[in-house]
């Protein structure tokens, strides 16, 4: 009963002093709104980055061969290096612990025809291990199997967009596609988080493609993923060693950069991780900065409010208000306004971010949003700051002799 009375007294003070209430409420709401927006936009940048680098498995390594640029051990420069099946065996046997998935690869551009529709696609002859390497996700049927490899079957798994191009809305499953004059049966359709390009590939069994298009046992390149237990530095050491032994095997000068090129995604991952860390620090910095600005704002206003009310507080004390009732009144008022305004700012910010949505995607801001606990935490911080900022002047005002307060004009 007494508490209800106290709240009625506070509501009256709030509603009868609108300017004061709006002033302090606005500061809080604005600080939280800015905080939410900045944090949300920062997160949007982060999302864009995550998406850009989510295309392929983060632990993939690709090994390509080229032409030597340095003479070595009596061999001339300008020699073409050609990978063969025995290289695949060599790599696999040399690094059984480091390698998780491994596939040699032959890549050709082919004309694909299905009934009236036709288009050019990149066809890759691969092993079943290639699927996790590309992070391809099967949506219909299956990927290639070891039985396909063994039988040199004329089957293919096609990208989602290949199916869309050639079959329209119909399913490609079980249909035969003509690739450069040879018919292949579609056993699976996949999609790929890497985007459109990755969804326009056609995968066929490695042995089928090699037998048909390569003399002997030539291989275009190797793809592998390293054991995810390796740290970034261990992974880089692994790919360096891999390069070194391959160069030795093919009699290439260790300093020759062009003959064998090993592309380790761990390097990129390392850069991206560092960039993300910097971005996180920047976002955190902006967030803390906004909060501090808000805290200073609310502190100033609380000091001003208490100063402005000095005489009123003097009157209340003369009429029998105890110091604790004065402090309690100011604090409850301040907490109430801060909480309400903070919630308003939070809601405005969240709605604004939702309204923005993906409309800023061309500025690299994707799905700007904030985690609820972050903004709620920020609001609580501001409430606590407002309480402390209110408590100090309130305590001072409550301890002023009523006669001094009464003479305050």
């Amino acid at each position: 009963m007494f508490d209800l009375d106290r709240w009625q007294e506070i509501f009256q003070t709030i509603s009868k002093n609108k300017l004061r209430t709006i002033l302090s409420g606005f500061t809080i709401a604005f600080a939280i709104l800015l905080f939410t927006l900045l944090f949300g936009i920062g997160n949007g940048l982060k999302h864009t980055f995550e998406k850009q680098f989510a295309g392929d498995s983060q632990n993939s390594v690709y090994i390509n061969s080229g032409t030597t640029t340095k003479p070595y051990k009596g061999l001339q420069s300008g020699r073409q290096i050609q990978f063969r099946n025995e290289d695949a065996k060599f790599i696999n046997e040399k690094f059984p612990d480091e390698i998780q998935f491994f596939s040699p690869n032959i890549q050709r551009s082919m004309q694909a025809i299905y009934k009236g529709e036709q288009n050019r696609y990149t066809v890759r002859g691969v092993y079943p291990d290639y699927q996790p390497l590309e992070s391809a996700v099967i949506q219909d049927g299956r990927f290639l199997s070891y039985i396909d490899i063994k039988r040199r079957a004329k089957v293919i798994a096609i990208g989602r967009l290949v199916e869309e191009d050639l079959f329209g809305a119909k399913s490609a499953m079980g249909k035969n596609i003509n690739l450069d004059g040879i018919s292949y049966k579609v056993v699976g359709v996949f999609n790929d988080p890497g985007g459109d390009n990755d969804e326009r590939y056609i995968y066929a069994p490695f042995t089928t493609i090699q037998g048909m298009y390569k003399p002997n046992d030539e291989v275009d390149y190797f793809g592998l993923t390293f054991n995810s237990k390796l740290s970034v530095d261990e992974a880089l050491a692994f790919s360096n060693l891999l390069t070194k032994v391959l160069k030795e095997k093919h009699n290439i000068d260790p300093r020759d950069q062009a003959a064998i090129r090993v592309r380790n995604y761990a390097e990129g991952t390392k850069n991206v991780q560092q960039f993300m860390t910097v971005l996180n620090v920047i976002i955190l910095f902006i967030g803390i900065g906004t909060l501090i600005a808000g805290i200073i704002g609310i502190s100033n206003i609380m000091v001003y409010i208490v100063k402005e009310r000095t005489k009123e507080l003097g009157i209340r004390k003369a009429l029998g208000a105890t110091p604790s009732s004065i402090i309690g009144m100011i604090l409850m008022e301040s907490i109430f306004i801060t909480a309400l305004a903070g919630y308003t700012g939070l809601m405005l910010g969240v709605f604004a971010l939702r309204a923005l949505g993906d409309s800023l995607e061309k500025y690299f801001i994707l799905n700007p949003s904030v985690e609820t606990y972050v903004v709620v935490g920020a609001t609580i911080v501001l409430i606590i700051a407002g309480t402390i900022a209110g408590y100090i002047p309130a305590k001072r005002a409550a301890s002023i002799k009523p006669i001094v307060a009464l003479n305050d004009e």
Partner: protein
Amino acid sequence: MIKIEKLHKSYPIGKDSLHVLKGLDLHIKEGEFVAIMGSSGSGKSTLLNIVGLLDAHDSGNYYLNGQLIENLDERKAAILRNKFLGFVFQSFNLINYKNALENVALPLYYSGMGRKERNEIAMQYLEKVGLADWATHLPSELSGGQKQRVAIARALVTKPKVVLADEPTGALDSSTSHSVMELLKEINREGMTVFVITHEEDIAEETDRIVRLKDGVIISDEKTLKKSKV
């Protein structure tokens, strides 16, 4: 009701201190209507602030309603003020965003009374000062005399032992001053101890007893002749 013995009070001014009250002795009995007179600087406001527990004294004894006032913290002082004292100020000191009724009811809020009850009692006192029709008006909508009547109603609402009035007519013209003094007299006739501070001779003449202060000491203490008229 109020008993003061050898009361001293000084205020620090820079490094020096100003000795304002120099050993006052004063005894005011229940139901008296006393005026403290003196020019500015005589210490009369300081005396009222000490009597009203708005300020602390340095040395001497002060008994309010038989209770020795010493080592009061703000909380105890606030409770005693609420219980025993009612204030009427020269500048009214109404809270400007509260209407007349709410201003009068405020001391009852601090004594912990429920909303309905305190509004009823506040209304009775507004009727008593003739402002029942103005209950919902804000102080800014009231004349000076009306504001002082609201302040008097507020001083009376807790049924205090003593009403302390500091220059209650200082901001009012002479006819309004007169009606405010009539109101104070009426209250006194009902048995309330009233303690008025003024520097106006004709206002002091309307009380029963005039105590004159000069430079922190009492120079005269006499009954007025009016008492016989009542």
